[in-house]
Each structure stands twice: as structure tokens, then as C-alpha cells.
């Protein structure tokens, strides 16, 4: 997984609340038994006027020239709510998104981001409004910088916005760690737990 340390990039505002994972990647865009090939279907219903023919909707924020090469999304509250589909995060990653900044996230989506090297940043509504404003004139000329080490978002004017993230999540992203590999190192502990657990709840293992 690609580590996330410091990233500077173009940010695009999508300030609607409750942007759900169906909107991020519609079900019918999840065509293959694979984590790949999803970037094209990202936000398909909004991004294309005709998703089947891939007719570009010029009004959609990511299609506007000012937001070319967007790597950071500014979202509304409850971003990524709804379906658990990790395809939403795989699609964002494939499109090139490295971070999403929102006042709050769907809890499964948040975990999925961490597992796939996308940084979910929680900032207040007010801070996001200020950020969005600062971008408006010239998104290309005023990229955002996100420094995970220092837990800071820095806008084009140098204004700094601190954010919180769980130490474990931070570590995982900073080092590009694979959670399964990390947990497998705790194998002995898990084994010891299992032994105790099976003694405590024998009925759980006698039938199933």
C-alpha cells in the first residue's frame, strides 16, 4: 500500500451532505470480480449525462477544467454513508484521490479508506467552508497540502487546520502497512485467547 505522509494536490468541493457509496460507485459499475477497473465508474451518475455511453457532464465538478487532476475531495457530513462496498474506495483510489476531507464519514467507509491508503480527514463544517472558499478562485493555483505527520491541512494561503486521527490509523497510513500482516504477528496472543474462549463457551463449538 502506498504510504501517506505529505500530499499536495488540487482539491475539489462536493459539499452535499450524505454522499453515499451508491453515488460514489453505482452498483452497476461494479462489473468485474476485481478491485480494479472501477475508476471510470466513479460518481458515474453525476459525472456522465449518459453513464452507459460515458457522455461527460461538463457541469460536474471533477469534469471542470479548474479541477483537473483532483486528488483531494472536500465533502459534506456523513460522507460515504450507505452500502459497505469497498469498491467506493477502490474507485476513488484508482481515480487518483488520496484524501477526503469531511465533517464526518460513514463508519465502514472510513475503515475502508484506512485499509486502502486514502486519508479520511475530519474537519469542522466551518473549516471546510473556509477551505472551499479559498479554493474557489483558482483551484489549480492554490493546491492543498495535507501533512499526516503533523496532522495538518494547509491551504494555499498558508492557513493551517489541525485534525485528529487514531494513532493506529495514522501509523498504518504513514507506513503503508497491511493490517492483516500486522495482526498476524499477534498470532500467539490470538491463539491463547481462543483456548480460553473455547473453554469458557464450549457450547459454541459442540453444534456448529
Amino acid at each position, binding site marked *: 500500500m502506498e504510504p501517506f505522509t505529505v500530499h499536495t494536490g488540487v482539491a475539489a468541493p462536493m*459539499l*452535499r*451532505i*450524505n454522499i*453515499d457509496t*451508491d*453515488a460514489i460507485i*453505482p*452498483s*452497476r459499475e*461494479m*462489473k*468485474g*470480480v*476485481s*478491485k480494479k477497473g472501477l475508476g471510470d465508474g466513479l460518481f458515474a*451518475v453525476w459525472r456522465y449525462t449518459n*453513464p452507459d455511453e460515458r457522455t461527460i457532464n461538463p457541469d460536474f465538478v471533477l469534469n471542470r477544467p479548474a479541477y483537473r487532476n483532483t486528488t483531494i475531495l472536500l465533502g*459534506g*457530513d*456523513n460522507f460515504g*454513508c*450507505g*452500502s*459497505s*462496498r*469497498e469498491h467506493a*474506495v477502490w474507485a476513488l483510489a484508482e481515480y487518483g484521490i488520496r484524501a477526503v476531507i469531511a465533517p*464526518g464519514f*460513514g*463508519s*465502514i*467507509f472510513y*475503515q*475502508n479508506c484506512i*485499509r*486502502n491508503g486514502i486519508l479520511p480527514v475530519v474537519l469542522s463544517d466551518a473549516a471546510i467552508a473556509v477551505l472551499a472558499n479559498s479554493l474557489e478562485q483558482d483551484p489549480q493555483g492554490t493546491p492543498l497540502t495535507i501533512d499526516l505527520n503533523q496532522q495538518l491541512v494547509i491551504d494555499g494561503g498558508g492557513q493551517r487546520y489541525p485534525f485528529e486521527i*487514531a*494513532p*493506529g490509523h495514522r501509523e498504518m497510513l504513514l507506513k503503508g502497512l497491511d*493490517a*492483516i500482516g500486522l*495482526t*498476524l504477528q*499477534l*498470532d500467539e*496472543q*490470538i491463539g491463547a*485467547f*481462543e483456548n480460553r*474462549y473455547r473453554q*469458557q*463457551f*464450549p*457450547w*459454541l463449538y*459442540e*453444534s*456448529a
Partner: protein
Amino acid sequence: MSKTVFEKIWDAHRVSDLDDGVSLIYIDRVFLHERTGSIALQSLAEAQRTLRHPEQVYCTMDHIVDTFPGRGDTTVMPSGTAFIQSTRREANAAGITLFDIGDPRQGIAHVISPEQGIVLPGLTLVCPDSHTCTQGAMGALAWGIGSSEAEHAMATQTLRVNRPATMRVRYEGELGFGVTAKDMILYLIGRYGAKGGAGYIIEFAGSAVAALSMEARMTLCNMAVEFAAFTGLVAPDETTFAYLQGRPHAPQGDAWRQAVAYWQTLCSDDDAVFDQEIVINAAEIAPSVTWGTSPQHACAITDSVPAPAAMADADSQTAAERALHYQGLEPGTPMAGLKIDNAFIGSCTNSRIEDLRIAASILKGRKVATGIKAICVPGSQQVKAQAEAEGLHEIFLNAGFEWRESGCSMCFFAGGEHFGAGERVISTSNRNFESRQGPGTRTHLASPATVAASAIAGCISDPRPLMEKH
């Protein structure tokens, strides 16, 4: 120290504490489905990782499989067959239990897991599906995860979990006539918003919840995720035990007695402290229906479409305006009387035997209005068989409903079968997002009773006049 049910289950599964609020939690059961199951299994195999306990992993075919009678591996969903066949291949290779097409136990994961006694009180269960919260109704800690987390759970039998805050939602008193669990949950979300439960594990409690059947509790817990909760649960009680006894995967004999003795300890202690509490007077709840494109856009069926200006804040106003535009509605229009094109009874929210019984009691001797496409999709083959044994299928068919094989069906659109653009659907499912049931389709969520009554009237209708008082 006094504890909530959640804390008791959490503590029993805590392998270790990792850092700030994150614990390594032991996972008793993993449930997969063909939509994401094969990707997770494949990706594990590619990384040369094995399943720690394949006997604790189950898989069903529900999301993609067709629900037409006589179905097989081919489906109207583009590339659906590939998903079905690779899931079968991977499930067999991994040695997990598969409820395949043609198996009399097949059905929607959240319907068959309780039905088979796979989810039990006090267990942890995860599934790469957001409505896994449904299974919390059994008194388990069950929640939806992503595909990578499913891999993690299968490889290590644990997950790294942020400890959620606790909330209790108490429904006190008696529900009014014709009011069901679906109305209870829509009422909660309508009143407290689609993110009202964010960050919380919710215990549904109170006398109105204690009085609910297991089927109804599952409906209630099903939409905890629409309330943005980590998950929901109901403490197990005699109703739970009676439901579970004798189920194929539930403990038997002595093991059953030991299990029940433990389960009886799984209640929130009297002085347990919740981080948040909501109390609802059950008598206040009316049959509910959604008008917009978020589950929080819910109101009583006797209400009218609200004006966006009446919303609490600017974001909600914008969202409401957009929703009304999408739904083709004007503020002030009464919900009852709104013409519909389709009626859908199904989904993990409302496709269990009790749901079908309520709908059938309204449909009996009546006909669906002309021009309405009406579909009933039982949640599992077992529910279907039970309904047929009771003769319910004939009531549905005679009324003009289609009678399907079990699965998720038109609860969601994935390129296959769907409702038309601009068409209005009254649906027992759980999501009314834009294009959820078809590109441009307008969804109104409601209870099975309301859907049945609306199908007959051809417009959104209060079911109460058609229901028999007992």
C-alpha cells in the same frame, strides 16, 4: 461494575487493546455473499493467506442471483454469472459453508443467518454488507464491514475495532393499531436525522421493543445503519430463546442449556451508563413513509410533503430541495394519495414470514390496482416454503403480485432488473437513495402493510382502514 449488553459482549471478545480506543476483537462468525465474497477469498488466496477457521465462515448467493422462477447461474445482471461462479469456486476451495442456488436454505444473508441459528446471542458476526446490523436483533454484536476487513477477519479471526460510544433508544408504551417495527425505525430516523446515531452502538430497548417478535426486531435493527450507527442490537430474552431453540446451527441439549444460562446474563445492568439516551413514546408513532431521498426524509402517512424551508439548517434545505426535484414532488402535497407505479415487498428489512403474513392479510380477496407492477420476494427459500405451506403465495398471486424466488432482487439496482426512470415505487426496503432501485426511479419506503394497501389503491395509502382489529 455495571455494564451495558454491548460492553459485556465487547469484553468477552477483547483479545487485546491496541491503542487509543482500538481493540483487537475476536470474531465468531463471518458471513459472505457473492457480491464481494469471491473478491475477498480470491485476494486472500493471492496473498497466500489461509482462513484461520473456515468452519466459522458462511456464504450465500443473494445480491446478484436472479429471483425469477426457474433461475440458474445466468442472471440479468451484467457479468453476474462470473460473480456467482467465482464465489462458488472460491467458497469450495476455502472449505466454507455455502448456501448455493437451489439449496433450500438459500436466501438473503441477514434472513438466513438467524433462521439457521448461525448468529446467536453474545456472538460477534461480521459480513461485508452494511445491513449486517439486522442480526443484532438476536442479541449479537453484528456489524457490516468492507472487503479488506472481511479478509482480515477470515485470516486472523479478529478485527481491529474502534470502540463505539453507547446509545440506548427506548420505545416505551404500546404501539398504535397498524403500526409496525418499520414505522418505529423510520420515525426515529425522521426525527433525529440520518446521522443521529453516528459513532454509536445502539441498544433498542423499552416495553414496545420487548413486545416485538424476532422478525420485527430484525426490521428495527436493520435500519440502524441508515441512522449512521456502528450497529444496533436488542438484548436477548425469552422471545429470542424461543425463536432459536431447535435451529440447525444453534446448540442442542446440554449445550443449549449452558448457552441459555449465559445468554440470560446478557442484559444491560440497571445502573449501566449509556453515553446517550433517546426515549420515544411508542403511541406517538403512525404508519410512516419517506418522501425524499434520504431515510431521514420520513413522515407520518397522514402528513404532507414538507417545505425545504422548514428544514433545520442550510445543508438539509439544499438536500431537501434536491430530493423534491428528484422525486417530482411539491411541498404541501399529501403523502396519502400520491400515485404509484410499482409496489415491492422484499429485502432484508421486510421479507420474513411475519411481513408476508401482514401483507397477505390486507391483500386477501383484493386486487392490485390496474397498471401497478407488484412484486413479492421472500427473504429466503425457507420463508417462501413456509408462506406456501400457509397458502400465502396464492393470496399474493390472486391479488396480482409476482411471487419470486428469494434474494435481494430489486432492493437495489446493479445493472440488471430494475424499475423505470421517473417511476414511483412504494417499497419495504431500506434505502431511498437516488437511483437505488433503478436509474431515476423514485422510492418511497414503508412497511409491508402500507405497501400492500398502496398496491391495492394504486397510490400511497394508510393501511389501517384495510386491517382487521383483533
